[in-house]
Structure formats: C-alpha cells, structure tokens
C-alpha cells in the first residue's frame, strides 16, 4: 500500500506516551501523576501479586484444578495501572483476560476461580461491585459500555464506564460501533485496547492497515492516545485523564496500551512457538513492567526485597485460601441452571425438566 501524505500526517500524530523508560528513569517529568508514596507502593504490590497469581493459576490449570485461564504476565502495568485510576463506583466491562482488574474492583478471588471452573457462582457479582462478567464474545463488551455510560450519564453520576479489549478485538465492528455511539452521545466512556501484538497467532500487522490502533478514535470523532503499556505510570496518568474527561462531560477516550503477553494465549493448547520468535519474547521481557517500576521505587528508597517477599507469600496464601473456598462451594447442579434461566416464573417445560434432572442427579 502506498499511503498518501495526508494519511501519514494523521497517523504520525499518534506517538507513544511514556513516563518511565525501560531502565526505570523518568523521561517525562511534566506528565508525572500525583501519587503518594503509599499509592506508588500499592501499585507495585498489586503488580507483584498479580504476577504470582498468574504463575499459580497456570500451575493449577496444569493440575486440572482451575479450568479456563488466559495468562496475564507482561500485561500487569496495563491492567493494574488503569484500574488504579478508577473510582470504586466506576463500571468495568472486561474481556476474558481482564480478571485482575475486576478482582481489584471487588470480585472476590474465589469467585474468579469459580468463574474459571465454569461454576455459576463465579458470576454472582457481589452487591455494589460495578463490573460486568469477563466477556468471551470479543467486542460485545464495547457496545455494552456505551449503554452503561449512558445510564451513568442519565443518572447524573460523576462516574465512567471503562472497557477492555485486545488488538484483535479492535478489528470487530463492535469496536467502532461502541466508540461511535459513545461519541455521538458524548458519553463518559473509556475504551482500552491492550495491544499485546497478537490475537492468538495473528500478528497485529495483519489486523489492519492502520499504523496505530489509537488513530481509530479519529474516525469516531473522539480522543485517542497510544501509551506505553509496560509503564504503569503512563498507563495510570493516561487513564486518569481519560476518566476526568468523561466525568467532566468532555467525551469518551480510546487508549491503546502497547504491551505483550509472555505466556500462551490461553492454557487450552496454544503453542506460541508456532507464531512468535524467542528473540521477540526476549526483546519484550526487557521492557518488563515490574522490573522497571521496581527500579524506580528502589531509587526512591521505597522498595526492598523483604517487602516484595512478604507480598509473594501473602499472594500464595490468599490463593490457597481462595482455592479452598472454591473447592468447598456446593457442586453445581443442572437444577441450579434451571433456576437461573429466567428471572420471572419458570415455564412448564423447565418445571418438567427439573423433575427429570432431580432424578438424574440423585443417582
């Protein structure tokens, strides 16, 4: 393809926003968000915790004790930094990989595990926790976000709806449709694309002729930015600004976070060696979000190995307890599913089938 100068001009505007470089040095002082030492440490704590959780989840999956799992290592800054910028009363509409965000938004860990195992109790969002369940249908969450944001707007709440998808998800029609609706109604919505370079095996270059995903905001007439998704400070600052724009009635935002998933797509048989080189893996591991932020905190004398070790132990203990709780949850029955098929009165076909399954399940 030969791109015209006019097009190139548009595309070239989208430069990656960064605060911390790979060595943990601040390269963009003016953009530094206001965060207390405690808050900075909390962000690191959550990234360490999430990395341990990821490792445990992978091994539990291998032992057949977890079920569906999409690894997150590499994407901690994108996930944790963006959620950290939210208010508790904001809404999150996650994709299947975005479990850390909804955990930190209030979904108990054992329910996250039950969701992985395919147990309906995993989906019973506790009262007051404003999340949708992890979306399996790529793109569906993006149009739904416009609906949530419209509800918030109508109720005069100073809150936003934030949604997550991937580089592949940005090819769905729903992606554009959701942004376009949000723009048309000037909704308090933030659309995050975690561009981890692959949609299962398909490299991002094959998804679109667009140079960036951020530029797709232009067609919807909304603000778009590309952010270093391995830099938690940049992720936080960009999300916080986008949130403010939403709350102030200044419109929706699209944020593209450049990141990488170190592991396989999911634990169900994906083999990354079929589509990525180990050089590419190595190159991205040099940008690691934990390494860089740890360095930054150590330079500020805010972090120590001891502290980190405590978090690792805490994470392991919590996971053990959560698995125990999940194991102790009553086995799911088909009659439970019959109960939750309709919210109103049960139709006669289901009443009849309840009897059938009561018998089948008592055997």
């Amino acid at each position: 393809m030969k791109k015209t100068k006019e097009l190139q001009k548009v595309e070239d505007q989208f430069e990656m926003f960064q605060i911390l470089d790979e060595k943990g040095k601040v390269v963009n002082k003016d953009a530094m968000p206001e965060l207390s030492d405690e808050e900075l440490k909390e962000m690191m704590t959550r990234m360490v915790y999430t990395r341990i959780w990821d490792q445990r989840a992978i091994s539990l999956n291998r032992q057949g004790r977890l079920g569906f799992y999409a690894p997150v290592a590499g994407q901690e800054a994108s996930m944790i930094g963006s959620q950290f910028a939210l208010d508790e009363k904001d809404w999150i509409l996650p994709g299947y990989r975005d479990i850390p965000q909804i955990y930190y938004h209030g979904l108990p860990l054992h329910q996250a595990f039950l969701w992985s195992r395919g147990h309906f109790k995993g989906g019973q969002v506790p009262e007051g926790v404003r999340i949708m369940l992890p979306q399996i249908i790529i793109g569906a969450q993006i149009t739904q976000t416009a609906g949530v944001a419209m509800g918030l707007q109508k109720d005069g709440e100073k809150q936003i709806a934030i949604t997550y998808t991937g580089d592949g998800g940005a090819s769905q029609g729903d992606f554009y449709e959701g942004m376009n609706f949000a723009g048309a109604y000037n909704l308090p919505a933030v659309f995050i694309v975690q561009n981890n370079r692959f949609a299962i095996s398909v490299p991002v270059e094959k998804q679109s002729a667009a140079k960036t995903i951020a530029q797709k905001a232009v067609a919807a007439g909304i603000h778009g930015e590309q952010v270093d998704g391995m830099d938690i400070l940049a992720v936080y600052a960009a999300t916080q600004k986008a949130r403010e724009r939403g709350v102030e009635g200044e419109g929706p935002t699209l944020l593209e976070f450049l990141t990488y998933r170190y592991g396989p797509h999911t634990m169900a048989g994906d083999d990354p060696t079929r589509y990525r080189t180990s050089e590419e893996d190595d190159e991205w591991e040099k940008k690691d979000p934990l390494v860089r932020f740890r360095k930054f905190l150590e330079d500020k004398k805010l972090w120590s190995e001891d502290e980190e070790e405590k978090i690792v132990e805490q994470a392991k203990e919590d996971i053990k307890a959560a698995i125990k709780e999940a194991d102790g949850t009553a086995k799911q029955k088909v009659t439970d599913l019959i109960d939750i098929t309709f919210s109103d009165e049960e139709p006669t076909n289901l009443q009849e089938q309840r009897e059938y399954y009561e018998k089948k399940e008592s055997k």
Partner: protein
Amino acid sequence: MAQMTMIQAITDAMRNELKNDEKVLVYGEDVGNNGGVFRATDGLQKEFGEERVFDTPLAESAIGGLAHGLSLTGYRSVMELQFFGFVFEAFDSIAGQMARLHYRSGGVYNAPVTIRSPFGGGVKTPEMHADSLEGLMAQTPGLKVVIPSNPYDAKGLLISAIRDNDPVVFLEHMKLYRSFRDEVPEEEYTIPLGKADVKREGTDVSIITYGAMVQASLKAAEQLEKDGISAEVIDLRTVSPLDIEAIIESVEKTNHAVVVQEAQKQAGIAANVVAEINDRAILSLEAPVGRVTAADTIFPFAAAEDTWLPNDKDIAAKVKETLNF
C-alpha cells in the same frame, strides 16, 4: 487406506478441494500459519500459499461478508468460524445474506460457501463455544446443515459441502475430533448431502440421531441388545434437509422411534423429526415418539456439563419407556 481422526479427515477434504479447484479459498481466524486452533488447516497454508489459505482480521461478520463478496466474483469459500458460539456475530452474513442470495437475485447469483465450525459439549470450554445451534440454522431456508459423526463421513460430506453451489453450514463436534480413528481412503469420494446412514440395523425401535449422539446411541443399542431389544440406529448426517425417506422407512419397520439430540429440547431438529414422523407414519407407531435432549437452559457452565448432556443411559431408558408404553 489410512487411519485418520476426524480432524485429519477434515484437513484431507480441504486439501483435496484446494487441489481440485483453484477457485477454492480457505480462511478464518488463525487458520493460516497457526493451522487453526484445532489444527484443522495444519499445513495447508504451506502447501497452497497465503493467496489460497489465509488468516483474517478478527471479525466474523466481515468473514461472512467476504465469503459473500467472493461468491459474486466466482470464488468458492471455505470459511471457518473459530467456534460456532460466535455465529451470532456472522448471523446476518449467513442467514440474512448468503442464504438468500440465489433467491434474491432470481437465480442469477449463488453463494458456494462452506461455513466450517467446531461446536459440541463434553470438552469443558468457556461459554459460547460449545452450544448446539444447528436448530437456528436449520430454520433458515437456503442453508444446508451438515453434522458428521465420524472421520469417514466427515471427509466425504465436507467434499460435497465444498462442491455444493449453495451455502452449507458444516458443524464439527469437538469431542469427535480426536476421540477415535477410522479407515479413510486417501483418494477422494463424496457422500451426498441430505442422506442419512443406517449405522446399525434393528427391528424393535429406531433411534434417530446425529453428531456425537451417534456414538452414545450405538452404545445404548449394545446395552439394549443384552436386554433382548433390537435397536436400529440412524445417523442423519445432514440435519437440514432431512432424509425423510430413510426415517420413515425405518419407523415403518420398527413401529417405535426415539429421537436423540445433544441440543436443548425446545424447537430444534428432534422436534422437526418427530413432526415428520407424525405427518407420515403416525399409524405405524405403537407408542408416541420418544425424545432425548438436553434441558431447556442455556448451555451449562462447564462444571455441570456432564449431567446436562444426554448420555447412553438416558437413551436406553427412553427406548425402554417407548417400548413399554
């Protein structure tokens, strides 16, 4: 002859047609370099090049639209939907557009498109992967819906589907992909669409089924044999259009019928089979037609799959109930 799993037989059918007709194209999410998430297209891109076997961006409605458009320019598409639960994204392309192309153009245009897709319970996928949605497709005039139950049929039916000049939805039960092997000829052969197969002859009852329930029904028939009941098992193979002749012939012989499907009971293929039997052979029946299906809930969360799905015991029990009516 070679021993092949169903997934190998499916790859073999596509390879055959890619060789046979240069207008055949194979595409979908991850089907190129990765060879598909189940490896159904393994090696095909290498063999036939990226021009013929390629990855698409992630957008099912555009995959469907692409197939429609390629039909207008003389190409024959084998498009993959990575899992059939995602068909809702492509529903307009398939049911709203391709299925109507020949009709809408007064017979001038046609859509020789095969929509291949895995589905089926028992493998504990996340939601929206395993649902049996063939009933939705079968309700759409202009579409054919094929569901093979074994490697041999899969190859012959897929070749026929690709050669068919109208859109064919070709559904591949995930549980059957690698669960057993069959003798499958390396050379090409076709199995006509719309033709059922008698998998086992019997005289007391006709078990009419398709997909993974064929294995369960055969197992049930073995158990019934021990109890002195001779069950005939009919594999529909194509669920739309139905092979009504084969169904009626069998029912008129056994005077008893049990229809088995993995899908929920409401509407669906089994209901259609029962209606056809009632229309044409009600006086041959000595008992109401039995139905074994799943419950009318959404496809279950993985942890409840095993009880939700019908099994050989459910089938054998229903047969006895029908015979003891």
